[in-house]
């Protein structure tokens, strides 16, 4: 719109980075998170306690790990609804490996490996056969969990070694659990990957316009394939954590995780249409979801009522900026 203003030498940017940071989605989320935190500490005397806060993190770390990779996938314009089913299959395979006497390192390798394999299968169907990811992953969601059911039927695997349980129950230092540390480390890695590397830049380009990205020499298929594998990898890691935390595997494990992970991603400001979003937003959203569910849990509000809050939060947080814009246009 400023075509008319002539600049022989173009400046890098006009607005101050600081100003745009203050007005960003992430700062809105920070406010929401702080608000809920304060509300929680008033609502329940048990909230402000190191162990409580530590327990709180178990409510979201596994889903949030998936949400990190899912964010990249959604930014690239695809989606993976099969993540929870991947957890089920990976966990089942770990259980199977356990029956054959696998020790902890092998168990972890199996879980993560199955995750990557499932992700690669999704990735192949989507990029190789050029199928829409939403239907493909609805299909593989039944397939993966279905295989878990075939293997396990009405049985369950249990008896995981103590050293394995540490992944889901252990503490690195004081109240800082391994799950939390792993999540924070992954969050940093994903932040760098998305916001500071060529790979991340290309993900945004693909999500904005995959045709133009391809025309610009971006290997769209390869990148999308990698993203599906990454999502599988994170699901495999979540499977390790969850299995270690539960100490047992049933085929119905992690049911409904996919929608919760996607909720975190969308709440974190990632555009479901692709092309926009940030890791910081996703991390904050995960924290918000964790705070809300734990806070309400302390008040013994049933889980189902909490979902009203998260569902409304999702719609309201998305709708507010739109309403605000409409209102400003009218004024």
């Amino acid at each position, binding site marked *: 719109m400023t075509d008319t203003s002539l600049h022989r030498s173009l400046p890098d940017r006009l607005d101050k980075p600081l100003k745009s940071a203050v007005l960003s989605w992430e700062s809105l989320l920070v406010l929401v998170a702080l608000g809920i935190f304060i509300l929680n500490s008033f609502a329940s005397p048990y909230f402000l306690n190191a162990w409580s806060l530590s327990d709180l993190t178990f409510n979201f770390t596994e889903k949030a790990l998936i949400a990190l990779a899912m964010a990249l996938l959604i930014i690239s314009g695809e989606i993976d*609804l099969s993540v929870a089913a991947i957890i089920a299959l990976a966990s089942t395979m770990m259980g199977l490996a356990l029956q054959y006497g696998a020790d902890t390192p092998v168990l972890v390798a199996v879980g993560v490996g199955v995750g990557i394999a499932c992700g690669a299968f999704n990735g192949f*169907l989507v990029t190789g*056969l*050029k*199928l*829409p990811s*939403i*239907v*493909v992953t*609805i*299909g*593989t*969601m*039944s*397939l*993966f*969990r*279905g*295989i878990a*059911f*075939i293997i*396990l*039927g*009405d049985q369950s695997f249990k008896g995981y070694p103590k050293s394995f349980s540490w992944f889901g129950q252990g503490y690195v230092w004081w109240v800082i659990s391994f799950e939390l540390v792993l999540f924070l480390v992954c969050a940093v890695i994903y932040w760098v990957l998305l916001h500071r590397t060529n790979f991340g830049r290309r993900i945004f380009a693909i999500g904005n316009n995959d045709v133009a990205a391809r025309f610009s020499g971006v290997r769209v298929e390869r990148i999308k394939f990698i993203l599906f594998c990454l999502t599988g990898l994170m699901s495999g890691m979540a499977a390790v954590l969850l299995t270690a935390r539960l100490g047992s595997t049933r*085929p119905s494990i992690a*049911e*409904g995780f996919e*929608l919760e992970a*996607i*909720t975190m991603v*969308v709440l974190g400001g990632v555009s*479901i*249409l692709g092309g926009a979003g940030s890791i910081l937003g996703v991390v904050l959203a995960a924290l918000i979801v964790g705070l809300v569910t734990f806070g309400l849990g302390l008040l013994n509000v*049933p889980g*189902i*009522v*909490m*979902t*009203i809050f*998260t*569902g*409304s939060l*999702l*719609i309201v947080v*998305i*709708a507010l900026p*739109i*309403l605000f814009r*409409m209102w400003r246009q009218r004024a």
Partner: protein
Amino acid sequence: MNRLLKHREIFLFLAILLVLVLVTARFPRFAQPGNLLTIFNDTSILMMLALGQMAVILTRSIDLSMASNLALTGMVVAMTNAAFPGIPIPLLIAGCVVVGAALGAFNGILVWKLDIPPIVVTLGTLTIFRGLVFVISGGAWVNAAQMSPDFIGLQRAVLLGLPLLSWFAIVVAALFWVLMTRTPLGRALYAVGVNPTASVYTGIDVGKTKFYAFVIAGAVAGLCGYLWISRYVIASVEVAGGYELTIIAACVIGGVSIAGGIGSVAGVLLGAIFLGVINNALPVINISPFWQMAISGTAILLAVVLNARGERRRGRVILKTAEGV
């Protein structure tokens, strides 16, 4: 062969026949007319829901909240019936349709007026509606003993050899067929999905058409709310949990394109019946029901692959000599 693939309804029909034949080979009682009618009756609710979902998917949208809508409407009607057994059932059914349509309209308004992507809206209402079931019921179940005999009996009444539930499905399917092929609204649903820009040029209000699609899906979900509750005679928070994906699966298997604009009533009905036949066949032929999920997953994947084959544009042909190919 190409012709055949194009007419995917026929293809699907043959696939269903094949399953029937295979199962009957091992278990002759399966293909008896009585059992087939039972399968049809068992699939009725899925058929109706899938038709409602088709209306939405045609417009390049998706409704993830249908199962929650069903649960909420079902709980409302069950509690109403428990509290006021005197209210005539047809009135209750009409009420269900209205409540369901209103919930659908809520989705529709957000999509139409605020332009929020349908998947986000319905992901939100998916949890909100189900949470509301808990809130209005306080978590308590409404069980058979609390429902009036008419409430439970209506769909089981037999007319011309078929339970009323099957008739509901037949009537709804007929209405959808008329809607989709013979009314401007139905055609607008297709047009919006095929080419939204061109729709605007044709005088179709894209947002409003999507709104109507959500209202239709909601109304169907509402109707099915009553049918589901009276069929399984229990209303609880968990009713039809996770069923939204089965509904979408029936559409996909039935040849509805997730990219909008493509799909037919017959295809969706067959898609639902396909799932119904599989579900019924497994326990009968003594395959562990644990196989069921993997089989329907595979069926969905096969269906998408075949669909994509059929839909893939026959590239426009420049070379004159290649035109015959």
